[in-house]
């Protein structure tokens, strides 16, 4: 008998898969939901979960009568949006987004994130394609060791090298009349994040390149192609799906990287991670605003990921199924 699961078993697995998927999605959903709450709703216990998009008076028609409670009006205070419709409902508001945008310049952080994630990805690919080419097509006896050694750098906690890197970052380089430091500059962060993600990029590309038959590259060599022509005209076009998913993953990893971006930036090079972190301040916790900032920070990458998911899944399972 083939591996036909009984209906009950299938249902159980489906339920399990949904549970897991929802568990994984829960923090994101919670953050997005919270970003539309008032600060009071954000810390309400029990939590309010169902947003109501109000009519002209800001109230949902179905709850109009119930919400006309004079007592609640009296306690409404200055923060009018804080009035809760009651039950598991809350009234959605864009107030947090307005405040966040007013208080900090989102576009500047966004631009820094784009430059740092994009720059480190581009640089990483430029370094990793030739590296992966040589390991995949002209392996030596030590190739496996090199690959493993590269990966082993990812096993080290990042904080382990914080001090030396911080020293380099704060070293005063003589420049012109004065001095110059690498810390809080975008190029330095580009290089650091490139190095952080390089092992993964090389590994991924190596895996894709291994799938490309060596004879095709040999044919290119017989056809008179130089090494550069072989990589540009034959290898790269054939590896486009693999390279594309590597670029995506590298971009996402660099975008989300928080340890180095938080430790090595202050103002000038601060990306969206710093933007989020600035809302978790000693002055107090502003969950709703923090959530709004987080949502704004992850929105671009979520959109990118959504559009690229097919490519990404194909890329990540490349070679696993032929």
């Amino acid at each position, binding site marked *: 008998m083939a591996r036909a699961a009984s209906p009950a078993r299938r249902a159980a697995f489906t339920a399990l898969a949904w549970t897991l998927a929802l568990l994984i999605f829960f923090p994101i959903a919670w953050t997005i939901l919270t970003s539309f709450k008032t600060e009071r709703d954000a810390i309400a216990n029990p939590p309010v979960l169902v947003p109501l998009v109000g009519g002209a008076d800001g109230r949902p028609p179905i709850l109009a009568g119930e919400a006309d409670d004079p007592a609640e009006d009296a306690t409404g205070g200055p923060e009018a949006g804080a009035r809760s419709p009651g039950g598991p409902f809350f009234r959605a508001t864009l107030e947090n987004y307005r405040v966040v945008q007013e208080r900090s310049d989102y576009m500047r952080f966004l631009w820094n994130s784009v430059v740092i994630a994009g720059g480190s990805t581009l640089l990483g690919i430029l370094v990793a394609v030739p590296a992966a080419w040589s390991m995949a097509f002209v392996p030596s006896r030590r190739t496996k060791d090199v690959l493993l050694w590269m990966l082993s750098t990812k096993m080290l906690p990042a904080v382990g090298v914080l001090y030396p890197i911080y020293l380099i970052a704060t070293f005063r380089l003589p420049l012109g009349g004065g001095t110059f430091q690498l810390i809080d500059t975008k190029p330095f962060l580009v290089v650091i994040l490139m190095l952080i993600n390089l092992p993964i990029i090389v590994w991924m590309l190596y895996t894709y390149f291994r799938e490309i*038959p060596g004879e*095709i590259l*040999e044919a290119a060599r*017989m*056809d*008179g192609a130089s090494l550069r022509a072989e990589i540009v005209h034959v290898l790269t076009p054939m590896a486009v799906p693999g390279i594309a998913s590597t670029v995506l993953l590298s971009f996402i990893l660099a975008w989300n990287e928080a340890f180095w971006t938080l430790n090595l930036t202050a103002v000038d090079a601060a990306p969206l991670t710093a933007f989020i972190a600035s809302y978790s301040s000693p002055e107090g916790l502003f969950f709703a605003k923090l959530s709004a900032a987080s949502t704004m920070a992850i929105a671009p990458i979520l959109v990118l990921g959504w559009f690229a998911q097919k490519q990404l899944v194909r890329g990540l399972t490349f070679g696993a199924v032929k």
Partner: protein
Amino acid sequence: MGRIELKGVRKAFGEVEVIPPLDLAIEDGEFCVFVGPSGCGKSTLLRLIAGLEDTSGGHIEIDGLDMTDTPPARRGLAMVFQSYALYPHMSVRKNIAFPMKMAGVDAAEQARRIEAAARALNLSDYLDRRPGQLSGGQRQRVAIGRAIVREPSAFLFDEPLSNLDAALRVGMRMEIGELHEQLSTTMIYVTHDQVEAMTMADRIVVLRAGRIEQVGTPLDLYRSPRNLFVAGFIGSPRMNFVEGEEAGRHGAHTIGIRPEHVRVGEGPWRGTVGVSEHLGSDTFLHVHGTGLAETITVRAGGEVPLRGGDPVSLAPEEGKLHRFGPDGLRL
């Protein structure tokens, strides 16, 4: 021009010597076939000539120039691979144009040569397709087209037909033969199939374990194999070998007789038919119990009404016996 000479060429992978020092000259315009069982080093030898593998010693000369350390792109050779090795992301036209693009041939000349190659290889209707949309035979033709347009001094074929089905293989065999007649360019062709070797070659190089066992025209090898290995490898079905008293009677350690040189009828060898294969044009009989060898294979012309279990007597054609000494060499 395309005279290729190997002088003391050897190849070792680490400690393992796959090709001991070897000398061979392939004349200009010759169709030379390297044949041998798998793992005999014939493909490695071809790749050494191509430059895809580095030699561990010796020299490779092409038209008198030492090309031992020249990269493959600059040896002026073209290669057709077993897997076709087409560029899957390019159309047939671009595949064929690729070597010319690399060589910087101008566009008009490229178009002219593509046109000519496509006409010669029946590919004109497929120029805008991708390799993935072609059949095996068509792909192999594209690979050949890509080799032709380079106008190489020699073609190297690495088992080009072994991925094709039997009928197509016969057709392509003819086409490659015709191509050689048209271009009269040197061709080196690697195969493990002795029928391909026999039908196509001007000269066959039989290899075993990296060593040349014999070099000669197909009929040379058929008529006077230098040793037991070549005798057993060339010819289908395989030559029968008989040792012991019967061989001694002919003053040899081993005698060999090809299945087509054993007649059914009154003769000194008696046995029982085991398996009989009736092809219509021929009948192959596998005869047991002769006391000479485990099986004696006989090829009888036409339809012979013998079946398994029938007693049979056989007569070898005395003039067609091959005699070998105890060292396996021809006497």
